[in-house]
């Protein structure tokens, strides 16, 4: 009986210290203790604005946005993204044109302009920040699985 109490105490101690060591950087998902306490917000992360295109993890992944979009209008009245990425503005902006699929409705009919269902760009395309992921990303690229011998190792992507 006495031993089991000691064991329980040891387990609790190890659990609490080990847990706090692991959780030093990552915010706890359960919130503060007690839950009514106010928690300090983590610092805002800087946006990645280097304009370097990021490789897609799979062919139909929506490309991520490599520039700042702070203050860009995207509402019923105006879509700032389209001021550069629309087909007719790509010459002056030198920005990549939105995919041809964005000119099609869901039945595959090609429309004259941006399909309404593709209007809210930020539903799929998002800017990136320098934040460290809370959990390590174990994603393996398709090429790594099919042709592991041809992989140069770290592909340097994000």
């Amino acid at each position, binding site marked *: 009986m006495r031993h089991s109490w000691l064991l329980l105490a040891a387990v609790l101690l190890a659990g609490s210290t080990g847990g706090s060591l692991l959780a030093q950087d990552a915010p706890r998902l359960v919130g503060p203790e007690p839950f009514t306490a106010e928690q300090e917000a983590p610092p805002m992360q800087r946006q990645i*604005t280097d*304009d370097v295109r990021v490789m897609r993890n799979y062919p139909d992944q929506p490309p991520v946005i490599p*520039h*700042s979009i*702070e*203050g860009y*209008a995207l*509402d*019923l*009245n*105006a*879509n*700032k993204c*389209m*001021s550069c990425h*629309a087909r*007719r*503005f790509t010459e*002056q*902006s*030198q920005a990549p044109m939105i995919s041809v699929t964005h000119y099609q409705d869901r039945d595959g009919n090609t429309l004259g*302009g*941006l399909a309404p269902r593709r209007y809210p760009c930020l539903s799929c395309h998002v800017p990136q920040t320098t934040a460290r992921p809370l959990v390590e990303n174990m994603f393996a690229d398709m090429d790594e699985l099919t042709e592991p011998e041809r992989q140069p190792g770290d592909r340097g992507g994000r």
Partner: protein
Amino acid sequence: MANTIVRLWRWFRGLPVVRTALKPASTLSLAFLTLGGFAAGVIFWGSFNTALEATNTTEFCISCHEMESNVYQELQGTIHFVNRSGVRAGCPDCHVPHEWTNKIARKMQASKEVWGHIFGSISTREKFLGLRRHLAEREWARMEANDSLECRNCHSAVSMDLAKQNPRAAQAHERFLFTGERTCIDCHKGIAHRLPDMSGVPGWQ
């Protein structure tokens, strides 16, 4: 015709107040009149400028609820209100010319805004939203006409360091701004306020 003018002129000269004004002063001294006139001029000009400056502040603009509850609320989230270096642009910095003649001209045009306030042309949110495109177009036209002077009061092309800019921005400025092909407002619309319905505005779709 000439006869009428002559007769009107004689009638004007004959008015008692005009006759008194044209007579030499009989009781007031020359020193009183000159120095008093000078002092009165200083007071008049001083109070005129004070009034001009008092009506040229953000506080004065947002003393009307139309400005306070619509455009001022929108300004607050933008980089012209809060930023890393702590410089703030208030309403008159962008909406009133800084140079005297144009400032007075804009002040006269603003009497239309007083009219609008009295008769409530944008007294509710719905009315404001309904007129937003019209209001925005007036400001765009004004800035296109003066080559975005109010932007350039702070942001001048000569003091722009392209190396410090994002390459994307540097390229656009080099190609469109420095060549004079476009002016600031052509691309930078809606930077301090929400945009109206932009359908049909060049550069938007």
